[in-house]
């Protein structure tokens, strides 16, 4: 096992324990040609374990950028991002993959299921990279499918499901490796309001069971389910509404 992998498994207590996500003066600058785009400008924020965040704000305010950073898909240009005790900026690509695999689950606006795989195989995907045995993965996939109410659709292909069902498969997949943090970029963006509401019920339930959820959304109706609402403006935190804020 690599050092990074070992680190990823044993969170450092001093950083606040499992599930704590902390941004310290984080900036993200994109260089496009000769000009610079400041997508994030010195953001400092703690996401407590078990909290449910909705990140809101106008287009281009840096919501997706923040979520990508939180998701270890990108590194900050400046500042520190602490996840499960690691300073993400210092980790190499393999260690970032390992962090995503063990600590983070992604839910996307466009579901992002792999079309040539069945529902079962899609849910098993993180377990495959965790090198679980086929038997254990199959059992786990069945459990997860049941949890999102799709136990009878395991052998279907994603295209054969409705949007809401696809998003629930995506949630099952995000849950398979039992990460403590779920990241969602407009999870209801492609769904009608009734279906979106169902998805939000599911997320709320997961949050009650202890998952930390960070979700980007445009809609106040959706954001209402979160315990915290973070308003972004021009790469900065505009204001925070909700519990304790």
């Amino acid at each position, binding site marked *: 096992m690599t050092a990074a992998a070992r680190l990823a498994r044993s969170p450092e207590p001093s950083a606040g324990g499992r599930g704590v996500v902390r941004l310290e003066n984080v900036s993200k600058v994109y260089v496009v040609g000769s000009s610079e785009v400041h997508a994030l400008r010195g953001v400092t924020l703690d996401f407590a374990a078990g909290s449910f965040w909705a990140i809101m704000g106008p287009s281009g305010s840096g919501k997706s950028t923040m979520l*990508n950073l939180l*998701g270890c*898909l*990108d590194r900050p240009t400046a500042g520190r991002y602490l996840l499960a005790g690691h300073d993400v900026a210092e980790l190499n*690509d*393999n260690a970032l*993959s*390992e*962090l*995503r*695999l*063990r600590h*983070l689950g*992604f839910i*996307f606006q466009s579901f*992002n*299921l*792999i079309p*040539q795989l069945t529902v079962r195989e899609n849910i098993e*995907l*993180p377990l*495959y*990279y*965790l*090198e679980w045995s*086929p038997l254990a993965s199959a059992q786990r996939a069945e459990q997860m499918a049941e949890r999102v109410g799709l136990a009878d659709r395991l052998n279907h292909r994603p295209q054969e499901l409705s949007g809401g069902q696809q998003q629930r498969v995506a949630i099952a*997949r995000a849950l398979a*490796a039992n990460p403590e943090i779920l990241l969602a970029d407009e999870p209801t963006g492609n769904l009608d309001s009734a279906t979106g509401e169902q998805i939000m019920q599911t997320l709320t339930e997961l949050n009650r069971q202890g998952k930390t959820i960070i979700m980007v959304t445009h809609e106040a109706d959706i954001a209402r389910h979160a315990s915290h609402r973070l308003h972004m403006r021009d790469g900065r935190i505009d204001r925070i509404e909700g519990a304790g804020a």
Partner: protein
Amino acid sequence: MKAARLYRNVALGIKTLLLHKLRSLLTMLGVVFGVGSVVAMLAVGEGASREALDQIRKLGSTNIIITSMKPVEEESRGTFSPFSVSMYGLRYDDQRRAEQSLSTIRRTVPVKLIRKEARLHDRIMDLRVVGTTPDWFDLVRRDVIAGRVVTPRDAERHASVVVLTEYGARRLLATEHSLGEVLRIGGEYYEVIGLVQSESGQGGAIQTPDQEIDAYIPIEVARERYGDLSTIVTSGSMLRESVELHQLIVEVDRTENVESAAAGLERMLKQYHAKNDYRISVPLALLRQAEATKRTFNIVLGSIAAISLLVGGIGIMNIMLASVTERTREIGIRRAIGAKRAQIIGQFLIETIVLSMTGGAFGMALGAAIPWVITAIAGMPTIVTGYSMLLAVGISVTVGLIFGLYPARHAANLDPIEALRHE
């Protein structure tokens, strides 16, 4: 555990490839034909060269063969004056001199050829009978089918014995039951004492010493009874010639000494032969030549194969790059879930290797089938060797690895965020 995982990965690769059956098939074709042509060409080359090498080896690699040749002057004279006798070729003395000339020469075997009408029971045939010494049977090793060969005692006693070759026996309709029977050769009577296998050497470029020989008798007997003069009747003219020895086979002690011995013999013979009435052939030299030809052939073959496999490999690379572009989003999803770069590389590499190895397997089948057809239709000998099959497997894996690596690395190095945004 590791093996089970590899199995899963390969199964996944196959499944993915089966999603686009036609595309995968077309992609494989380059490797199929590349590997197929390598195996087929090697089989044809191997068949041809092994046949040649076998024939040369049968001449003996430590032997030098000196054959009497009618000089060009004699050839023309013969037609104008039918009553003159043309004298040429190796002399009995040449054998003695050859034996004494060099210490590297182990022994010599004389060959005196007699063409006579022969009769076994009611069967009458023109036979080619060779008068030789018992050493012949030691030097030109052929299996004895029945009876025995000529022994030194037969030679000493000037025994009237004859050994039939398989070829001769077939012509005379003789079998192993013919042992002890009497064969008449040109008015003289012989007891059939043995039957030996003969090398037909059919269609080959190199003549084996016993090709088209029907029977053997002791050389002393041949000299006494038939002399050196022979009359050959060809259409309209009569040819009389006197040849003491038709061939002399010289055995040298070691292969390293063959070439120098051949040169020595050439010098010696020049002294005693005013006319150029003999030819020296060295099987070893032929062998070397054949081997060199084989090497050249293999190099040419290798180049053709390399080019066709390069084309096949580029075909695979091209399709894999297209596949990576097409599956950019899938790559982004896998990376977001936590796949490492190496795992993405592995996934795509396995696909190309599965493709190229499947192509290689079909290629092997094709490569084994083509020589079979060639042998069946053209009658050419072909040999599909295990080594060529191994080579084919090795080549197809290598092609997969080399041409799969670039697309796979390209896939692994995609930025996950951009890959996820890809339509």
